[in-house]
């Protein structure tokens, strides 16, 4: 990238040559880097999207995190503990990517806690049995992979690079989820029922993870033009269904959609329409666990205030002692 041309953002329209250079970079499928000039809209859109993604990783620790202490074998406990820890790590890289755009992690956290920024609505559904851990791995991490693999080619460099690592870990999570389900399906009839029940509950919310249908997705067109986003919501949703159907057959579970069938002519599966009103309700805060998820995050943040203040105070005292030592 040509860093000599970099300048602070907020100069949309005022610097046509910078805009032209930015447009050229996007057109050539090259990456925008933190010090490059970028339109303010691009910066804001990215901060919003990356923050929302980071928040989703952190809130997403809760539904599965509930089962670490209850995992029914030590091996499963270790796998789940490590998975939830990875999600904290993903949150960290993503907040760091947002910071390269001038955002501040503490400020983004405040926005989340005050409900001014969103996270993925999927995490507002409850985890009712240990089979949910497997189904979340299979569906939710699977849908996340479908959404995120194209983001590894996103036009913004730090985001794209963070996504490469995150996608590798998500793939691993998805495998552990599917492997848990395969193991449970080989177990007792009660275990098979647990798996089917979890599939029934998570299927439709997972399809909603791709967002509203294309004709009702207001921000998509600009994000596609900026190559922040590479495929439409409906395209990704269809791909997810096509990949998941044969896996469900292999597992021996039924996906809860009577309209689901292979369409030879289109070369894709036909499937039913998710309840978009439900998605809107959950996004607006009326999902089964919205309050619970926010309350946990808020409480952790508030109860940690004294710890963070102590660390800051110690660092300041330590720096002062070192300065004094240096003078003496």
């Amino acid at each position, binding site marked *: 990238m040509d860093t000599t041309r970099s300048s602070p953002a907020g100069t949309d329209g005022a610097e046509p040559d910078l805009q032209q250079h930015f447009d050229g970079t996007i057109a050539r499928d090259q990456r925008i880097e933190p010090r490059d000039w970028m339109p303010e809209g691009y910066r804001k859109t990215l901060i919003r999207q990356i923050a929302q993604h980071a928040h989703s990783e952190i809130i997403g620790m809760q539904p599965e995190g509930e089962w670490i202490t209850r995992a029914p*074998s030590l091996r499963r406990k270790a796998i789940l503990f490590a998975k939830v*820890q990875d999600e904290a790590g993903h949150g960290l890289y993503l907040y760091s990517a947002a910071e390269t755009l001038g955002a501040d992690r503490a400020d983004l956290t405040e926005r989340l806690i005050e409900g001014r920024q969103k996270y993925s609505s999927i995490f507002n559904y409850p985890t009712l049995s240990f089979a949910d851990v497997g189904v979340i791995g299979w569906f939710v991490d699977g849908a996340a992979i479908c959404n995120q693999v194209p983001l590894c080619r996103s036009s913004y460099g730090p985001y794209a690079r963070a996504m490469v690592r995150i996608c590798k870990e998500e793939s691993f999570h998805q495998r552990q989820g599917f492997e848990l389900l395969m193991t449970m399906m080989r*177990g007792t009839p009660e275990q098979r029922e647990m798996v089917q029940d979890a599939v029934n509950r998570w299927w439709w919310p997972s399809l909603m993870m791709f967002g509203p249908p294309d004709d009702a997705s207001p921000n998509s067109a600009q994000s596609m033009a900026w190559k922040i986003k590479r495929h439409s919501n409906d395209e990704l949703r269809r791909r997810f269904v096509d990949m998941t159907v044969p896996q469900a057959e292999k597992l021996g579970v039924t996906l809860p959609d009577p309209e689901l069938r292979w369409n030879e002519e289109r070369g894709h599966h036909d499937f039913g329409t998710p309840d978009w009103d439900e998605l809107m309700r959950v996004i607006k805060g009326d999902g089964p666990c919205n309050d619970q998820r926010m309350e946990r995050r808020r*409480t952790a943040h508030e109860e940690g205030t004294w*710890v963070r203040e102590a660390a800051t105070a110690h660092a300041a005292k330590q720096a002062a002692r070192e300065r004094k030592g240096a003078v003496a």
Partner: protein
Amino acid sequence: MSDDHVYMTLAEGHEDDTRWAYGTGFEDPLHGVDTAVPDDVDAGELASLCVTLADDALVCAQRLAEWTTRAPELEEEVALANIGLDLLGQARLLYSRAGQADGTGRDEDAFAYFRDAGDFRNVRLAELPNGDFAFSIVRLLVLASWRLAHFERLTAHRDPVLAAIAAKGVKELTYHRQYAAEWAVRLGDGTEESHGRMRRAQEQVAPYLGELFTAYDVRDEVVTVLRQVTEAAGLPMPVYRPLPGSGRTGEHTEHLAPLLAELQGVARAHPEGTW
């Protein structure tokens, strides 16, 4: 669309199942290791030592897992989970060793999920509720310091399997102690509030210190470490106040049974289940 990814290969058949990172049909973490107990080692004593050390680790790991989504900062989420995962790993190896040494052939899950509170041999300090971050840090500092000193000795144990588990654990515990010590200093030195919370945490931990030092003679080493850290933190050394009873003989606080109920509930509800 050219974004091919591993999701598509998820259900492909592989006879050997080696594509799973953790393996399937996994039963024994010591698989492939020569597990004969040497002639000059008392197998019963070895088994009970392994169970004791595994119980400490499992109960600590369970308490650390409770911090998940509740830690004061994301870096602490990652660090506390790391420590919990290390201890969980130690517990698994030690239970497996115990099952071999005591001749029952019990696996790690038999020890973890199908014994009751009275059969657990962990120290009571490990089972106390997490309290605030200060309490968790003081407890971690004490337990990691004790365990590290003890594991350093165990690297010379006549049982080569236990010696190897200890050698692996020493590296992990060195980090645990370092992490706890750094936070103890930050919190002891930080603000009036954090200092006060550390003082209270020390008082809460003090009655449970004696129990650690009854069986294994690493007291001096641990006291030296604690003195160094408390001095750097501007805190007094905790005053030792003995409390009757000991987790080492199965006398626990009221907190262990609920901890185990949570840990064991799903496994016991599906005793025939495969996970």
